[in-house]
């Protein structure tokens, strides 16, 4: 068997943590090889070793059968290894071509030969069906096209082996389809691909083989054809995972969150939430389904006091909170899992302990007469870290150093532990692996069963349908329909989300 890349028994340590332990990954020529693992399992570390950003403590790397030392990314490039990062490395106000040639500009008599570069870029783009306009500015093109520009960048540098780091995380379903087609084109042209992901569906769809790592340790490599989503998930998490969310029927009681004729403006003074009405009862999960940008963000911000309300009222547990500031709203009884955990959810430069106390630090016993009691704070933080299984070296670790899943668990610990009357979860599982998703879903249902009202805003239809009891479809700032989660499906919701009307009687196909 011919391997283009062999990483044998790789071990990489960081102070206090073994990030990679005895991991072996062998990439065959012309295959798409998945690297699967939970958040923080060590996937990125392993690829950074391959890309020359880290040096392994043990193990060897062979490229096309030859043992190599990859000391920096330039060396990796020279060996034909290219990386498509999850967060694009593009200059926003440069054109696609300018970005691609950055660092290896073709020159003629001392000046950059942009025309030749554009021609080359166009040629590569056509050969692999990337459909990228070489002259378009990055800031003007879609996320999908930006990603294709990133792919072009590696190809332009002569990459034979491409590493994709969670490439579908920020793409729309159509863009994901396009990407899969491009990956297949690349394979047909003789390239080899490592796909870092935790989305099992994608692996089943495009990959030939799959290497799984769990908590830094290599679990093994399997042929995807012989595997199922369940078996992969089990390998990754180390136990059986249920995709079906287990829950009993809801027993809703009093209305605990009541939104009436709400109008909210965005920064351009456009009414993005327009006369919206919504009720959430105790003991139920109300899902909000909708295409991104139909007012979900503004609705949540208005309820939580982060954004001023133009008109209408918001009532939480009988109190009119329309004009309340965030802290007042929190104290009335709202828990908020924000959709952007780095922007709103965490102070990344604070410790994980400080973050866990971010909503309660000012209360007794953490503050007495204006003086903080750090011992009490960290005591509490350690309790919650234990209870919510936040995997962190210590409570004093910087929050930014944790993986996304553990950051999210810390936020959930903070918001749920206060036992709020209403819990608002905005895209609570974005970018997380199945283990973390399962945990978060079961927490939401647990809170529901304790009689809390839950508002779940998500762009993932599957999540909305599986977790919610009722689903409100939001379209252009209005709730256009409320359906029971039991009697709906993705097709019907998709139609409603696009502004279609619910059909009476049996749907015709």
């Amino acid at each position, binding site marked *: 068997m011919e391997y283009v890349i062999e990483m044998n028994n790789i071990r990489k340590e960081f102070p206090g943590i073994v990030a990679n332990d005895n991991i072996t990954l062998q990439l065959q020529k012309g295959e798409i090889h998945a690297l699967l693992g939970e958040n923080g399992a060590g996937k990125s570390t392993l690829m950074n070793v391959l890309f020359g950003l880290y040096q392994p403590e043990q193990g060897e790397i062979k490229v096309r059968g030859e043992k190599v030392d990859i000391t920096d990314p330039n060396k990796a490039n020279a060996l034909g290894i290219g990386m498509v990062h999850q967060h694009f490395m593009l200059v926003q106000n440069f054109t696609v071509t300018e970005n691609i040639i950055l660092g290896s500009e073709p020159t003629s008599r001392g000046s950059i030969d942009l025309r030749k570069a554009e021609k080359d870029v166009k040629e590569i783009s056509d050969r692999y069906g990337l459909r990228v306009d070489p002259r378009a500015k990055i800031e003007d093109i879609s996320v999908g096209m930006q990603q294709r520009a990133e792919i072009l960048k590696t190809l332009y540098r002569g990459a034979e082996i491409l590493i994709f780091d969670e490439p579908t995380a920020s793409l729309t379903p159509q863009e994901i389809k396009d990407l899969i087609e491009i990956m297949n084109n690349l394979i047909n042209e003789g390239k080899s691909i490592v796909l870092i992901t935790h989305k099992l569906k994608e692996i089943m769809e495009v990959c030939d083989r799959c290497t799984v790592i769990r908590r830094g340790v290599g679990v093994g490599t399997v042929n995807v054809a012989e595997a199922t989503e369940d078996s992969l998930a089990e390998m990754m998490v180390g136990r059986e995972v249920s995709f079906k969310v287990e829950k009993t029927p809801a027993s809703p009681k009093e209305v605990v969150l009541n939104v009436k004729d709400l109008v909210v403006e965005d920064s351009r003074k456009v009414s993005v939430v327009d006369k919206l009405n919504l009720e959430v009862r105790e003991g139920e999960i109300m899902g909000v389904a909708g295409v991104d940008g139909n007012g979900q963000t503004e609705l949540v911000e208005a309820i939580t006091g*982060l954004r001023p309300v133009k008109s209408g009222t918001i009532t939480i547990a009988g109190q009119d909170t329309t004009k309340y500031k965030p802290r007042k709203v929190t104290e009335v009884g709202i828990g908020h899992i924000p959709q952007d955990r780095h922007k709103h959810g965490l102070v990344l430069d604070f410790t994980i302990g400080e973050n866990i106390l971010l909503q309660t630090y000012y209360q007794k016993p953490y503050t007495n007469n204006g003086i903080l009691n750090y011992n009490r704070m960290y005591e509490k933080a350690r309790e919650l870290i234990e209870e919510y299984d936040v995997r962190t070296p210590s409570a004093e670790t910087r929050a930014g150093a944790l993986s996304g899943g553990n950051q999210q668990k810390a936020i959930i610990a903070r918001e749920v532990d206060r036992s709020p009357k209403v819990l608002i979860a905005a895209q609570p599982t974005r970018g997380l692996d199945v283990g973390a998703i399962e945990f978060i879903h079961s927490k939401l249902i647990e809170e529901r069963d304790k009689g809390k009202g839950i508002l779940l805003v998500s762009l993932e239809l599957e999540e909305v349908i599986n977790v919610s009891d009722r689903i409100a479809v939001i379209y252009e700032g209005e709730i256009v329909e409320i359906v029971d989660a039991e009697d709906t499906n993705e097709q019907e919701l998709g139609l409603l989300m696009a502004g279609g009307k619910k059909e009476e009687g049996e749907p015709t196909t």
Partner: protein
Amino acid sequence: MINMLKGRAFNIVIPIIAILFGFLAGALIMLLSGNNPITGYGALISGIFGEPYDFGETLQRMTPLIFSGLAVAFAFRTGLLNIGVEGQLIVGWFTSVYVGLAIEAPMVIHLPLAIGAGAVAGALWGFVPGYLKARFQVHEVIVTIMMNYIAIHVTNSLIRMYLLDSGQRTGFINSSASLESPFLSELTQFSRLHWGFFIAAAACVIMWFILWKTRKGFELRSVGYNKNASLYSGMNVNANIVLSMVVSGAFAGAGGAMVGLGTYQYANILPSFTNIGFDGIAVALLGASTSVGIFLAAFLFGGLQQGANMMQAQAGVAPELVEIIIALIIFFVASSYIIRWAFARMQSRKEEK
């Protein structure tokens, strides 16, 4: 290794390396200008530690530098660049001297009142850019720079119009408002060392306490790191921005009071900026915005300024050279990235072998 470079130890290593590089570059310049760097630096060191007088003067010089360093660092922790420490210090100086001149009271009342007046004046001077930033998003750097000019010219004309005593200065303050210490002065061969040094040391503790032990400090640091998350958790971001500038200005104003009530006992018409406030930026940077760091950095800068005299007298080195060395140290601290890079480079070479 990469992780270690980000670690706490490196926060200490970088300034030290930067200082060494600064001195090395200074030695090179001395060589190029025909001076012997060993005699030059020998004179510098004896200019700081040689006689008790020199050491006393060094401590006297570092006193206001501590305050201006704390002022810059405090605002910086909340994500604000207070370039107006200079102006806040000048109004603090003037106001404290005015209170020292105009009022007669027993020392227990008069001295704290005069220092407090200086701090309040500095706080007011800091409040204006803080409020404009919070209310109208006017960038604090521009406002504070302009406030510096307002400070120097307003105080100069107030002195000229109402308080001119002899030549270019006001009269001496009443002794009940003076920080002068015959004891400390005698101890150091009649240097101008005064009680303010201990107040400055206490101020370091106060800043540490506010930032790391109080609820407000927690909020200020949170706002400095992430305004959105602070807003989300219910903190009043705008109030914290104003508060940060007010406290920063109070530190600066108290620093001015040290100069007015301690070193000079009067205020004079300033022909140009004192530079104490601007040096505070360098002190805060070198001290990594920590209390201990600022104390040590202020000592270094105070020492360099004091030792410069001796370099000129003993070794014939131009005092401008000392300024160049200070500038080089700041340069190396600011470009700590280069040092990090050099470290990583050395490390990877070692690994290759």
